[in-house]
């Protein structure tokens, strides 16, 4: 090894060491440690861990709440991603018409992206309030009865979805807008000359050409919703009767409220495996689906 190669090697190690040491300690090692803990019964405090083998996993698959929470999480992810992307793409096509004041529209619609989830959940809880809530002002003229969103087993999950859609539209919109702006104007001109209607132009040109963004937002949106915690924690605490409980919140409850560390670690590992599968599928699919 030349002097220079040696110097570069040490420089590389030194420069990346802080990042890699922290990643190893707080991201990589925890996967193995979670796998290890998932084989024990432990309350996180006592020095004694009781070995259970795969008991935690058996308990988990027999636990009706685990299945309910998994179902809720998938439902929230699916509806949130589909609804917010649909609206966001529509808004992006309108913004792309370069109307006056578009930067103001964009700034306001994007603003929930950077707003603390705790505050968002707080104001929406108040908006959902059955008697004096703002939502009642909108729903009453439409003939809806008084709805106690937060405390109803049938409405708590939709309430969570509404808030996630509301806060996520801006981000998707900005990404779609960037993708739309990358489409060469000549393509649209050609379509106009050929007499294509606006709808045809959208479905035949814009939609296929933003498909990399659609794909990216579907996957990242799905994974981000799987990981959502804040909104559920503040608005419903997963209730009533777990009707709005989602995976990470259930994990939190098990780990930090009920101190079922082993069981919670098993949940964490399942989440990890699930997200890894999605990521791998994403890598495979992106080669087939996306028009670049």
């Amino acid at each position, binding site marked *: 090894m030349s002097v220079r190669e040696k110097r*570069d090697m040490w*420089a590389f190690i030194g*420069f*990346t060491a*802080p*990042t890699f040491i*922290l*990643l190893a300690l*707080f*991201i990589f090692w925890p*996967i193995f440690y*979670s796998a290890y803990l998932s084989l024990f019964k432990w309350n*996180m405090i006592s020095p004694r861990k009781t070995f259970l083998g795969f008991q935690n996993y058996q308990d988990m698959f027999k636990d009706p709440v685990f299945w309910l929470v998994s179902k809720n999480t998938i439902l929230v992810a699916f509806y949130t991603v589909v609804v917010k992307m649909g*609206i966001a793409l529509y*808004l992006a096509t*309108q913004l792309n*018409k370069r*109307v006056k004041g578009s*930067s103001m*529209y*964009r*700034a*306001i*619609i*994007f*603003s*929930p*992206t*950077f*707003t*603390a*989830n*705790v*505050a*968002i959940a*707080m*104001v929406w809880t*108040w908006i959902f309030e059955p*008697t004096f809530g*703002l939502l*009642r002002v909108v729903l009453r003229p439409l003939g809806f009865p008084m709805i106690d969103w937060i405390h109803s087993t049938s409405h708590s999950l939709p309430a969570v979805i509404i808030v996630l859609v*509301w806060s996520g539209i801006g981000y998707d919109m*900005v*990404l779609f807008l*960037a*993708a739309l702006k990358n489409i060469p104007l000549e393509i649209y001109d050609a379509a106009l000359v050929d007499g294509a209607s*606006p709808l045809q132009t959208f479905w035949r040109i814009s939609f296929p050409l933003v498909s990399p963004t659609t794909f990216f937002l579907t996957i990242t949106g799905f*994974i981000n919703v*799987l*990981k959502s*915690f*804040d909104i559920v924690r*503040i608005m419903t605490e997963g209730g009533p009767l777990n009707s709005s409980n989602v995976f*990470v919140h259930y*994990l*939190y409850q098990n*780990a930090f409220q009920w101190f079922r560390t082993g069981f919670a670690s098993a949940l964490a590992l399942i*989440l*990890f495996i699930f*997200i890894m599968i999605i990521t791998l599928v994403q890598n495979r699919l992106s080669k087939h689906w996306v028009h670049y």
Partner: protein
Amino acid sequence: MGAQAKNRNIAQLIVSKVIPHIVLLLATVVIGLPFFWMLTTALKSPQEVAIFPPVWWPETIRWDNFVTAWNTAPFGRFYINSIVTAAFGVVLGLIAAAFAAYAFARIRFKYRDFFFLVMLAAMMIPGQIALIPNYVILAKLKWINTYQGIVVPHIANVFGAFLLRQYFLTIPDSLYDAAEIDGMGHAKIMLYVALPLSKPVLGTLLLYLFIQKWNAYLWPLIVTSKQNMRTLPVGLAMIRSAEYAIGPEHLMAASIFVLVPVLLVYFLAQKQLIEGIAAGAVKG
């Protein structure tokens, strides 16, 4: 013929100018209304809060709601905690990201591609699965209820390192070469060449990190149990519980405490932040 063309022009004008405004205005109202509702509620009297249909703007503005909210819990302390943890988190995060980014952009090393894959893998792994192990590690270090407990587990940020690396790669090789001929080592080249030329992206990354750390809820919630170590979002969530028995007007006022710094940053730098998001995601 002339009338038909005129009609077509009017139709086209409506599609291209009027409909976008209506749609975007509607979206702006739907997104903006909760923010307005937060503000107007925070300024109302208890009587005005409990009316249906609600009043849109209070008869007399109750600024003292903010004083009451501030005094329900040690919000001054929460502010200090949030500022200290966000400041250290941002600065240390930037330093770690800059060094890693420079190494991946400019330093030749046999196993560089392998380590790059490791970084990518770390970005895929959801931090949520590491909550319990991280808590156990911090408990061993006796870092529960400390600033370093809130800050240190989230210093390494792969996203930031990739963003900066991407930018370092756009700096012309000739500049790096000139610095090397002048006898600068990697640390000096990074400090005197790469970083000064990357000020815009450093600024954007700084703002992202700040907003992310300021808004963080789950980790600070887990790693603090003493009231005087709570950050603002955790403290805000706390006062909602029954024992504080405060009205919606005070809860909304307290929510505004949390939002103000980020809103200020956002409105000063929204163009930079939004375009940074768009550019970062398109490049992957």
